[in-house]
């Protein structure tokens, strides 16, 4: 097991390096470098920047030098000093802007993942065991709706319904009185009261496809001879189900959860904008619209790395569940 985890972590290294190269390429694609924009922005506000300060920044990020030098300076800044560069739109270091938002994104993603998993597992098992019952039809129909309706559309409809019929707003993660307040028990409760709405919206479309997978897997297992054997020797139906076929069926299910993580982060980005959540999505889109490339690049880098780590966790869980994978 330890060897397996170590091998997986080693495999992660080239992936993360590839991600950083790709992110850097995206940052370079945008026209103009951030320094020119910074100087232009400050000049338009009537401030002048001394040539020395510009030269210092130019040297720090290797601007004007060949791309690979710039890349190395950028990566080593992150690795050695935790310096993600400068956001010219906010005129602050990127690292001071991202961590709060990454935290909320992490909480939201983990919450959504848990919801997706529990929901898809329960519903999938139910619709497989009670195949062609009314419940199965209703749930399958709901799953298809969840698959077809984009999350941001559900969010918009929800906004409309709550504003029009209940006369209250569902956006944000906190009530107005808690936004600036320090952390307390009340604030956490308030957060949870707001958090479930985006969790359900983002989770629904993910859960929909997982339900289909779980149902199909379990249906394949339910008619195998070993199930008949277990039933014949008098095992109670509930224990039989959980001990044998579900354990077999949950296996492809876990490996798919790894794939669904990127989709989760993507869904979060769009829904967060509609619901104006203080997560990474809205800031990323704004940074991209204003070509604030160091900020945008840092988000893309961190979100992708987070996803790779999530995939690693799901791989480890899969190996823990299924010895055949561990000893390959």
């Amino acid at each position, binding site marked *: 097991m330890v060897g397996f985890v170590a091998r997986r972590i080693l495999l992660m290294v080239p*992936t993360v390096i590839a991600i950083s190269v790709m992110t850097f390429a995206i940052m370079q694609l945008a026209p103009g470098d951030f320094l020119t924009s910074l100087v232009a922005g400050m000049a338009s506000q009537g401030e002048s920047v001394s040539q020395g300060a510009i030269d210092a920044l130019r040297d720090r990020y290797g601007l004007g030098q060949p791309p690979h030098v710039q890349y190395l300076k950028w990566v080593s800044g992150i690795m050695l000093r935790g310096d993600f560069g400068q956001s010219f739109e906010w005129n602050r270091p990127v690292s001071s802007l991202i961590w709060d938002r990454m935290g909320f994104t992490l909480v939201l993603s983990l919450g959504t993942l848990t919801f997706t998993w529990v929901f898809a597992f329960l519903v999938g098992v139910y619709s497989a065991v009670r195949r062609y019952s009314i419940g199965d039809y209703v749930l399958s129909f709901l799953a298809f709706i969840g698959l077809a309706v984009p999350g941001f559309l559900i969010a918009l409809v929800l906004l409309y319904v709550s*504003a029009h019929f209940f006369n209250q707003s569902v956006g944000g993660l906190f009530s107005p009185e808690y936004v600036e307040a320090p952390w307390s028990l009340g604030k956490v409760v308030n957060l949870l009261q707001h958090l479930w709405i985006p969790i359900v919206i983002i989770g629904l479309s993910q859960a929909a496809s997982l339900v289909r997978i779980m149902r199909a897997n379990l249906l394949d297992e339910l008619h195998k001879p070993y199930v008949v054997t277990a039933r014949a020797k008098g095992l109670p139906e509930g224990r039989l189900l959980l001990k044998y076929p579900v354990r077999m069926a949950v296996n492809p299910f876990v490996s798919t959860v790894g794939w669904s993580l*990127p989709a989760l982060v*993507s869904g979060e980005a*769009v829904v967060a904008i509609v619901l104006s959540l203080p997560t990474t999505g809205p800031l*990323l*889109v704004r940074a*991209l619209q204003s070509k604030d490339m160091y900020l945008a690049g840092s988000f893309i880098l961190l979100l992708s790395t987070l996803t790779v780590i999530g995939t690693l966790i799901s791989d480890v869980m899969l190996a823990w569940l299924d010895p055949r994978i561990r000893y390959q």
Partner: protein
Amino acid sequence: MSAQDSLAAPEVLVRQPAAEPEPSLVVASQWRLMWWRFRRHRMALAGGVVILLLYLVALFAEFLAPYDPEATSVQYTFAPPQVVHVYMVGAYVFGYRSVVDPQALRRTFTVDESVGISVHLFARGPSYKLWGLIPMNVHVIGPEDASAPMYLLGSDRLGRDVLSRIIYGTRVSMSIGLVGVALSLILGVLLGGISGYYGGAIDTAIQRVIEFLRSIPTIPLWLGLAAALPASWSPLQVYFAITVILSLIGWTGLARVVGGRFLSLREEDFVMAARLDGSSQLRIIVRHMVPSFLSHIIASITLAIPAVILSETALSFLGLGLRPPVISWGVLLQEAQNIRSVATAPWLLAPGVAVVLAVLGLNFLGDGLRDAADPYG
């Protein structure tokens, strides 16, 4: 069809002659068997009809839309939808009465039931050129008096007809799915085929690339690439750039399906037989292997189109995909981005219904095709 199919069909029949009473089964071709299987799937059939209708709408957009999608009206901004009332000899809609809210200084419209506007099928309205060629001015539905207002799905902030804009948007939204998937397919079949046919180190390398691409969250990646498109590009260039960006990820799914099929088919007896016969590699692939997984590929394509449609909608909704004056469902939904416009004009969400219809239809159709792809199972 190739030799193995005509051999396989009677064998199935010999084993269970009583199960399928249809006498024509013996001579039915593979495609006919698939059609029979597909026909049994009611939802897939319904999905197919919806998709066919949507593509017809895209084809005849100019004729079906009552108005020019860009025609603005200062008089009727945010006009609510009208209901068509049908009576014995014709149909009519009610007119509008405008009320100025003294507090918000905003003009709002209410339906005025004292004014009836006569509505006709095949009415003469604004002139247009069908497919840019044939000059016409007949619209499938329109008011008798061309200057009277008729907004069946309401109007937006510039007084443009939402229904006409959705109809025109069908063109871009439904075609971007096709173009995007066609691109993904070329990449997917090529790389997936290479990976499956040759196996070994090439396979490992391609699988690593696929794994890498799938481990990146797509929206941030797409946003980054889309933001890098120069603002000076023409709408057509942006359209193709966006499809390329979308298929950058889309091909991985298709490559896996194709690669897996190739890998299993390579070991089949009929491939070995063809090889012993001295067929060239290209001939083995094109003549023997491709026909036996073509149906699976068609099913995978159908299931891949909705993903592209949804992605385009999300990107355009965020303002980083297609830009006005191009009209797509995502661009239209951008109008409904903030709570204020949704609260005052909920009919701006109507393009979302079109998205849901298209995606559901394609999903059901794809499901049915996938079941039908293997008619011997």
